[in-house]
């Protein structure tokens, strides 16, 4: 894969491997992560911080699920999709999860083609990712609507513990917001690839920082993170 060129940042070859290499990098001057640009390092650290936010949300959810005195609604019934005569437990969530995980695949392809400087294919995959993300948010809106019409509110619901609605809206809402922001930034990145901003190193509108194809990868880091978080929400909220 081509070297990244943001401000000329590039991986230096022939460093020691394994733990010795790690020690050598951290003992060196200028920077500890020899192949990471500033933007990429910043995104990783931001995601670490964001991990703590989602962890706190999920731990808070588990705690109130234990502290509440009323029974927790049966998730395989609540989240079932009623089609024809049958209830399909978790059908909608399964499709949503499939859509979001697929979007991770298209995002990875977009990153790959971006580094090959194949603008057309990159844009196609970025747009695919954005469409899949928007589909996910759309289905989430459908799920919210369905539950709200069935009487679920942040403060109550027909089936049991009021904390069910509270945690559901809060956690999926916070995650959905992440996905929505991701879709917006995917569209911006796609626009910049389309206009060739990254080929010319055009300056950002706000930041006046030169653009680079590495931005597609940094975008990808965020997107994969949002997908990974969904796996945990799926496991802890829908399967438990």
């Amino acid at each position, binding site marked *: 894969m081509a070297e990244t060129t943001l401000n000329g940042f590039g991986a230096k070859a022939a460093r020691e491997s394994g733990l010795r290499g790690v020690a050598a990098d951290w003992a060196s001057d200028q920077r500890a992560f020899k192949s990471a640009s500033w933007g990429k390092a910043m995104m990783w650290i931001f995601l670490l911080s964001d991990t703590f936010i989602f962890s706190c949300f999920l731990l*808070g959810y588990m705690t109130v699920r234990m502290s*509440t005195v009323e029974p927790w609604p049966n998730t395989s019934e609540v989240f079932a999709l009623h089609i024809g005569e049958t209830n399909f437990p978790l059908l909608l969530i399964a499709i949503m999860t499939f859509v979001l995980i697929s979007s991770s695949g298209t995002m990875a392809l977009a990153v790959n083609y971006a580094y090959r400087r194949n603008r057309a294919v990159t844009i196609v995959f970025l747009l695919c990712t954005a469409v899949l993300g928007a589909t996910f948010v759309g289905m989430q809106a459908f799920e919210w609507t369905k539950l709200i019409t069935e009487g679920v509110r*942040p403060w109550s619901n027909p089936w049991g513990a009021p904390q069910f609605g509270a945690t559901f809206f*809060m956690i999926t809402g916070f995650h959905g917001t992440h996905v929505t922001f991701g879709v917006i930034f995917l569209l911006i990145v796609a626009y910049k690839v389309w206009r060739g901003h990254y080929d010319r190193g055009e300056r950002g509108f706000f930041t006046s920082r030169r653009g680079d194809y590495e931005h597609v990868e940094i975008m990808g880091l965020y997107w994969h993170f949002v997908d990974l978080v969904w796996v945990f929400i799926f496991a802890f909220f829908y399967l438990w």
Partner: protein
Amino acid sequence: MVDATPRADDIIPPAEVPELELYHPKSWWTTYVFSQDAKVIAIQYAGTAIAIGLVALVLSWLMRLQLGFPGTFSFITPEAYYQFVTMHGMIMVIYLLTALFLGGFGNYLIPLMVGARDMVFPYVNMLSYWVYLLAVLVLVASFFASGGPTGAGWTLYPPQAILSGTPGGQSWGIILMLVSLIIFIIGFTMGGLNYVVTVIQGRTRGMTLMRMPLTVWGIFTATVMALLAFPALFVACVMMLFDRVLGTSFFMPALVEMGQQLSYGGGSPILFQHLFWFFGHPEVYIVALPAFGIVSDLISTHARKNIFGYRMMVWAIVVIGALSFIVWAHHMYVSGMHPWFGFFFATTTLIIAIPTAIKVYNWVLTLWRGDIHLTVPMLFALAFIVTFVNGGLTGLFLGNVVVDVPLSDTMFVVAHFHMVMGVAPILVIFGAIYHWYPKMTGRMLDERMGRFHFWVTFVGAYAIFFPMHYVGLVGVPRRYPELGDSAFIPASVHDLNAFITIAALIVGFAQMVFLFNIFWSLRHGKEAGPNPWRATSLEWQTPTTPPPHGNWGDERPVVYRWAYDYSVPDAPQDFIPQNDPWPQKVPAARQA
């Protein structure tokens, strides 16, 4: 004859990262207001933090007036007293100390000390300040909202924080408080990411992590901790906001208020305490670690001696940072915990004493046979060590479950944490301002006013907080607006309370001398020159003082040594700057 001395630059790896492209301001607005220069942002942060800190100072006077002379001031109702307590605590801990150490000193010192031209993402850095300012404005707005600011105590414990019996609980106070905290955390994250990436990825040639001044280590570690601890507060604030606004029951159990059954039920108040203190305890060290780092540099510089045990000092900072994430429940001994939990948290709490003691010993050993100059910054640094040890010793009492239980929620706790995370870091902030003011303005702060400020503050702080330990030991509870004539409270407590109040007023007014000094010295201070303290670290080696945007002129400095080469035998001066290749020669390219 060929010069065989190896050229100094040959031993330093070549530049890996090209120059940061700076956005050079085109107008007055982008130079001084919407500036992307970390140094301007630092001064904006510091100015805002000190301004809101003055509000908190006035609040503390009002509290002390009530405690010292109960009943004299009719406008200080119990509700108003609770609001003063709450806002004083919240402002001091978060909007003053955190913002001033990380946003103020972090922004000013990190790029200069690691030899960078600026933070790695100056635009995001600028946004960080403006979001912080918004958080402060929302906080200030709560003073003017109907019902006034929240009076829930700075810990904002539910369920009382959002009930009608608490000032601001069922009006705007608590909402604005929570919103302000959420905004603060968003703004801080923008800045914090910058500080961390600048230290990890943005250093100059030759600047290894183990050559960084301890100031940078302290601020860096504290920022990493803040990025991991503030999420817990963020989540707690969001949940409580939902409890208050939407009527969810995250933290609210079933309650009867004034004979009315509330619609809440099934929530966990203890969950809030866990989230809050998972943030709250690291927060203590978010404030303390930058102070540790700065005081190390002050002591080394003003004692003309290298810091004792530099590597140990670095690892102590890192270990304290890591340990502080597993001690949070020592704030909750009386909340109802499994005894084994208390045992675990007491153990981890006391283990922190080890790296902390290493640091104190190393400061003392740095002073040992040093060439101690009792300058104003040094006075504050020495005062910090004494105060920190005092506050730390009472921490040993409160860290043990059985001793803590009777002392919990007494004035003893108030005295303890004011000593250890109130007075001690503030002393460092003063010392640091006296130390770095010449770099920021090119002029020295006035020495006589400085000494007056120091002695009144130092002696006054002890006059305030030493008696408070005793008041707590005899059982006076905290957060009580007045004590009445309870039988267990001896008359001496009332006298002491009046004494403390008078001391607090005097110390408060001494800070006005300090503020006056800051403005007066801008014009009338002695010319400082580039390096008045003859210090080694990079910020004193800038080609111009105060440093312009971009800091370094044409070429960034190259670092050949650690930051503590004071009194090196045979060296031409008693200090060797970090960018001085002595005993090797200055490369020809930079001799001009």
